[in-house]
């Protein structure tokens, strides 16, 4: 597991039923591309998050496959429909098999 991985997600706490909301996610991760070399000329091995998914009450909102060209601390912004009250679940999959999760509840109001 890469050090200091911390997911941050911004979701409004309330929405009208059927409303489209904007979700912003950021996760602190070095996203080592496998192209860089250290001071002695050795290639630093690739270590990235290769997939991100967002689900609402078990239904998919977005599924992103990531390559090394995604910047350090991967940031994503996208829009979701909120049909009912429930919970957004965010999952990041690391190259090394680690899985980072976060979730946010949303109310109808």
């Amino acid at each position: 597991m890469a050090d200091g991985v911390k997911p941050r997600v911004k979701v409004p706490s309330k929405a009208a039923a059927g409303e489209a909301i904007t979700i912003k996610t950021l996760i602190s991760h070095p996203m080592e591309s496998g192209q860089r070399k250290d001071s002695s000329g050795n290639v630093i091995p690739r270590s990235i998050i290769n997939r991100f998914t967002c689900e609402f009450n078990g239904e998919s909102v977005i599924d992103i496959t990531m390559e090394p060209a995604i910047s350090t601390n991967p940031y994503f912004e996208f829009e979701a429909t909120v049909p009912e009250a429930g919970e957004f679940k965010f999952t990041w999959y690391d190259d090394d098999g680690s899985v980072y999760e976060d979730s946010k509840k949303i109310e109808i109001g």
Partner: protein
Amino acid sequence: MNLTRRKTLALGGAAALAALLPKGAAAATSEEWIAEFTGGADMADSGLELTAPEIAENGNTVPIEVSAPGASEILVLATGNPTPGVAKFTFGALAASQYASTRIRLAGTQDVVAIAKLADGTFAKASKTVKVTIGGCGG
């Protein structure tokens, strides 16, 4: 774990092989990426919007946006990077719009290409040239 001479050699061999494999993957060109995604289908020029800055001072973090109403998938490629793949967005049933924004790395001045698979099964392509002052791939 006891490392005998034989085991050490075997490990070294495996490591050497592992080191060779990513090079094989990196050989995939953006044309190959596109062919794999579209299956060789024609691509329309409209239906997909790619927003990227004209000039990016820092290639390490270049903000981009893709938007293609009704698309099920959008593939983003950086044609001038050592490995052209950037990301593939797959939109689910609850995506309010087929829009996403992220930050990418660009090794130098190059074309960023996005290809969307639209609702009717056709493909749309958009590309944008981004001038990069300082490349973002290090070493």
